[in-house]
């Protein structure tokens, strides 16, 4: 068995059945071995960035390891954005690249780049395999490391000669699968602080689903009755129907969620890293609150805001201990719950719109209808911009793994490849990519991948003929001086989809929304819906970067009555 065959054998051992990749010179031995392998499905994307992002989408939607493969030099450098994307959102990824033969490393050989050196800051760990005998150990270690603790991408760079070398060492024994229900740290002090609080607030993030702790989270949310807010990556943690969930906080969060953070006297943070887009200016963040911080990663505790009590460890074990405590002695926070529910009714995102039928489509109106029409298990992969925020604000997610959004890196072009990955992970789910006209063009070549594998993906472009999110910030914070945001010479997206043999539909009026969505959902195969929306539409509310969340700017025409209701 040579190095390449050994890699495939490791895939089999770890039940890795789908990988995303693109061949080339130094990785050719692995592609040669793939010819004889019937168990590993290799998905050929049309750009290595899309391979990494598809592997990321696969992992996000399934909770399993995503795998991507590329050749040395340009293949490897093209992966970088996708790997950084996975790193910032703690997504488990195994990245395998070919490298020039060992003897040529350091000679500026054809397609040689020091990919190990270039990517140190965007991986959980990385390896350059220098000895064929090390390959079995490195593979085992990398696959385990990517998925353990706080997950992340692990990169293995393998010189071509090692891919061809006979491997005589055996794979090391796999350590016994860790028991997920690990020992729980002492929560007594934290519980006492929570019990004593008058206005405690649950603040949860992406760590809940990364730890596969959704069920324990919901059990705790229910047993405690705590009003809750979520970060962008925590959307869906509480499910569609929790009356105490106030949705997303932060820069584009609801007035209700930010108000609750402002007023609470205790913040109970679960699996969240207090990112600046969520907290706004730290000085003004939850100014009256003590903080209990629950996380797996010790480095997140006290990083940006000192915790009064930190509980570090396995989220499942910790949440279940808190649930038991809450069941034994319920919290008495009825008034605070009511107050939060009132804020949510008047300053949340759920309020139904009453758009007139012949008016132009707005982003919120479209997403609200999408949310109402699509089945509960729908997966939405967003791109980055205003449309991403409208999805976060108005789509009611049943589960955090249904909302695929590039949170940490904010990578335009994430959506379509991520949707491709998600569809491979969930063959029977409805998977929709909601994108903007700018983001769509960042990985538009992947229409060919959708066509090749006949994925029944639905693509929705909210086309405002500009880079809307940047236009909005220029309007509000740069004296309306528009700079390089105009996209009114976009291609004809409907014709473009059809060129890839993907049927497409155009809509532009509110009364066409339902028919449009129902048509693409009913179609048995990939289909694109092109939605013309106003260029001038903004995402509301908004907090200026660097300001406190208390300084939310609301939609001008709503400012007067909102103030009365929520302030």
């Amino acid at each position, binding site marked *: 068995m040579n190095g390449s065959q050994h890699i495939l054998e490791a895939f089999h051992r770890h039940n890795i059945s789908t990988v995303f990749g693109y061949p080339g010179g130094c990785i050719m031995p692995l592609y040669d071995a793939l010819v004889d392998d019937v168990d590993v499905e290799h998905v050929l994307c049309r750009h290595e960035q899309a391979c990494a992002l598809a592997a990321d989408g696969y992992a996000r939607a399934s909770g399993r390891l995503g795998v991507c493969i590329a050749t040395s030099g340009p293949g490897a450098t093209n992966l970088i954005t996708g790997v950084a994307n996975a790193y910032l959102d703690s997504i488990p990824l195994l990245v395998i690249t070919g490298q020039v033969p060992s003897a040529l490393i350091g000679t500026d050989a054809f397609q040689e780049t020091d990919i190990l050196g270039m990517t140190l800051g965007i991986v959980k760990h990385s390896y350059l395999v220098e000895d064929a005998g090390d390959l079995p150990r490195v593979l085992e270690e990398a696959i385990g490391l990517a998925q353990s603790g706080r997950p992340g991408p692990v990169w293995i760079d393998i010189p071509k000669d090692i891919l061809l070398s006979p491997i005589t060492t055996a794979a090391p024994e796999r350590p016994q699968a860790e028991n997920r229900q690990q020992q729980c740290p002492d929560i007594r002090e934290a519980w006492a602080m929570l019990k004593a609080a008058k206005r405690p607030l649950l603040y949860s993030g992406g760590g809940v689903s990364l730890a596969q702790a959704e069920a324990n989270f919901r059990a705790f949310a229910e047993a405690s009755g705590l009003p809750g807010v979520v970060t962008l990556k925590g959307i869906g943690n509480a499910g569609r129907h929790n009356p105490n969930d106030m949705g997303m906080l932060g820069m584009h969060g609801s007035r209700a969620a930010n108000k609750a953070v402002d007023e609470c006297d205790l913040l109970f943070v679960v699996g969240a890293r207090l990112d600046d887009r969520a907290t706004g200016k730290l000085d003004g963040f939850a100014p009256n609150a003590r903080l209990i911080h629950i996380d797996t990663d*010790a480095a997140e505790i*006290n990083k940006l805001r000192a915790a009064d009590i930190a509980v570090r460890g396995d989220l499942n074990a910790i949440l279940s201990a808190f649930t038991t405590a809450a069941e034994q002695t319920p919290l008495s926070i009825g008034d605070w719950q009511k107050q939060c529910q009132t804020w949510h009714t008047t300053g949340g995102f759920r309020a139904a719109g009453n758009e007139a039928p012949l008016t132009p489509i707005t982003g919120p109106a479209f997403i609200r209808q999408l949310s109402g029409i699509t089945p509960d298990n729908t997966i939405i992969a967003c791109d980055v911009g205003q449309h991403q925020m409208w999805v976060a604000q108005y789509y009611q997610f049943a589960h955090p793994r249904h909302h695929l959004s590039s949170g940490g890196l904010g990578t335009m072009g994430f959506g379509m490849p991520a949707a491709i990955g998600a569809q491979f992970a969930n063959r029977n789910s409805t998977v929709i990519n909601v994108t903007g006209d700018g983001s769509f063009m960042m990985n538009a070549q992947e229409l060919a991948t959708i066509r090749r594998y006949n994925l029944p993906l639905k693509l929705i472009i909210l086309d405002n003929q500009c880079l809307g999110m940047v236009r909005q910030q220029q309007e509000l914070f740069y004296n309306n001086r528009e700079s390089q945001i105009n996209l009114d010479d976009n291609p004809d997206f409907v014709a473009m989809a059809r060129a890839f043999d993907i049927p497409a539909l155009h809509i532009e009026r509110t009364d066409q929304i339902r028919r449009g969505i129902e048509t693409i959902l009913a179609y048995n195969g990939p289909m694109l819906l092109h939605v013309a929306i106003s260029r001038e539409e903004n995402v509301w509310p908004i907090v200026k970067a660097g300001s406190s969340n208390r300084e939310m700017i609301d939609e001008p025409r709503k400012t007067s009555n909102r103030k009365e209701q929520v302030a």
Partner: protein
Amino acid sequence: MNPTHEIASPSYTLNCRMNQEAAALERLCQVVRVRGFRIARMAMESSEECLEIALTLEGSRPVSMLQSQLEKLHTVIGVEVVSGAASRSRTA
């Protein structure tokens, strides 16, 4: 001129033990830089398996935050702050 530049940042001495692996030292130095510290002095000894690195660092951020970021590196076996801040040994 930025007046904060004239104020000397606190200085710390750290001992760090790492596994011998490709790019181990680069990884360490990169984390130190990205997390806001400057290397004033560095000494290293290597044995069969391990690197022993003594670092004198300057930086205005809490050194405990750097320590926990360094401890996250897979190649790092242990980090000890020997002067400049309360010493804290690695937690499990």
